[in-house]
């Protein structure tokens, strides 16, 4: 399955990954090989087959939607690379 360099760049954009030119070339080759292998799935007739989303065979129960205590603000901010005034600090979103 041929993959163009532009497609590789598009995927990297969607996935928010900065790649070097060398990485783009390498991932292009490797992804092509993997896509060639998974193309095998196209030979299966799945017209009347329902999709499976999970390994579970049991229906998932619902729980009452009630507020309950969680982790404290301090605990949640403990690992932040930058914080200020009890919030995560980030650079500007818009220029």
């Amino acid at each position, binding site marked *: 399955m041929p993959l163009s360099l532009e*497609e*590789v760049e*598009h*995927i*990297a954009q*969607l*996935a*928010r*990954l*900065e*790649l070097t030119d060398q*990485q783009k070339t390498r*991932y292009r080759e*490797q*992804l092509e*090989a*993997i*896509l060639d*292998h*998974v*193309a*095998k*799935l*196209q030979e*299966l007739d*799945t017209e009347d*087959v*329902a*999709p*499976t*989303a*999970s*390994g*579970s*065979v*049991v229906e*998932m129960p619902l*729980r009452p939607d009630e507020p309950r205590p969680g*982790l404290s603000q301090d*605990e*949640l901010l*403990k*690992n*932040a*690379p*930058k914080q200020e005034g009890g919030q*995560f600090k*980030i*650079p*500007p*979103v818009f*220029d």
Partner: protein
Amino acid sequence: MPSFTELSLIEMQTGLREGRFSSHELVEAALERIAALEPSLHAFLHIAADSALKQADEADHKGMAGPLPLHGIPIAIKDVLTVDSMPATAGSKILEGFRPPYTATAVKRLQDAGAIVIGKTNTDEFAMGSSTEHSAYGVTHNPWDPSRVPGGSSGGSAVAVAARLVPAALGTDTGGSVRQPASFCGVTGLKPTYGRVSRYGLIAFGSSLDCIGAFGRSSEDVALIFEIMAGWDALDATSVEKPMVSPSTSLHSAQGESIRGMRIGVPQEYFIEGMQAEVQTRTRAAIAQLEDLGAEVSEISLPHTEYALPVYYILAPAEASANLARFDGVRYGPRAEADSLREVFFKTRGQKFGPEVTRRIMLGTYALSAGYYDAYYGQAQKARTLIKQDFENAFEQVDLIACPATPTTAFEIGAHKGDPLAMYLEDVFTLPASLAGVPGISFPVGFDNQGLPIGMQLLAPHFGEDLLFKVTHIYQQVTDWHKRKPEI
């Protein structure tokens, strides 16, 4: 008395209860052996020596008043599971320095049962790999031959048990990451039924596939760990409550019990060209031995087996690409500084994710992207149904399935360098059960001519773990493969 690190989980439990030794002695012996062997094995990413000794002293002080099943026993935890205030890296630079403020339910239950977490074990980055070579913190070495991989992704935990550093350890199995390293390292490893053990506190990889499993030296030891950590948890919506007979108790009463009349199916699709001949021979020999013990063995077919690999390598990366979107340098882990938030995302993720994780995020993003979703993700989900049906049909004819756990024994470090597809093929015998969500156990059934362990896999219907433990236990009563240990 043998040295403390030689003792199995059950032997430690019994000895502590009878007051023959202290928890302090067990933990100290484990720490000494870890210190001596870590330079050559590198099974651990974090060793919690101080807190483990402190907990051991507390356990000794408390005594055996309340007979907790794991009271004072040291265990190791794969570094994709959180333990309050211990580092959790998932083998990745993107979580360097992260100390989660909560403990995974599976670990919490073991701690509540008295277990002492002695350290966090090495793993392929975000559990993506079959050798631990994809860990950002260096490869783990196989104790049977240090030039070879231990398997993966739970390689550190498998080695910790095989090298007698701890009697038991937790791993995770998304596509074979407990069963394959158990096989490569000559220990017993369980992947439970999907949903049987809560995933809360497991750093997610493929959420529809992820299972927390355990390594031990025997079926009995693994059964004890499993029954403590299994069960419904309010914090994981996919966890289920299924009443079960306590496997360790039933094993105890199964002494001398036979497997007469048990129907074991052998899938023809798991004996393929290109696999190591000795793996076939030893697996067939083990199956013949089960037959001698009274099992009714028959050939069966799981016709869609060959599609498991392509299905898995679409679904797991697709789920991973969504799960790993949360690592962006904002709330935890290191941040690559930049002038805009968008650049922070691109730089942090571009610099901190390793090559295999980047590859899978790219693959998954592609499979989910507009124009390709139906052809890849949709088709893979339908093919997953066919694989699941293969197992349903098989389990109408047989009680258990027996097959090799891996096509070969442990390969050389670097053998698949630069060839991701060759690495993916290592999982070809473990992927189908993961996709179907059924439980599997892997245990040693012999050695190849280089002295490397060979593992066999037993698979059961959903929630059939007790059957896996029973048959493995009966096999281990009449063989001693699981008692062999590497000379290190």
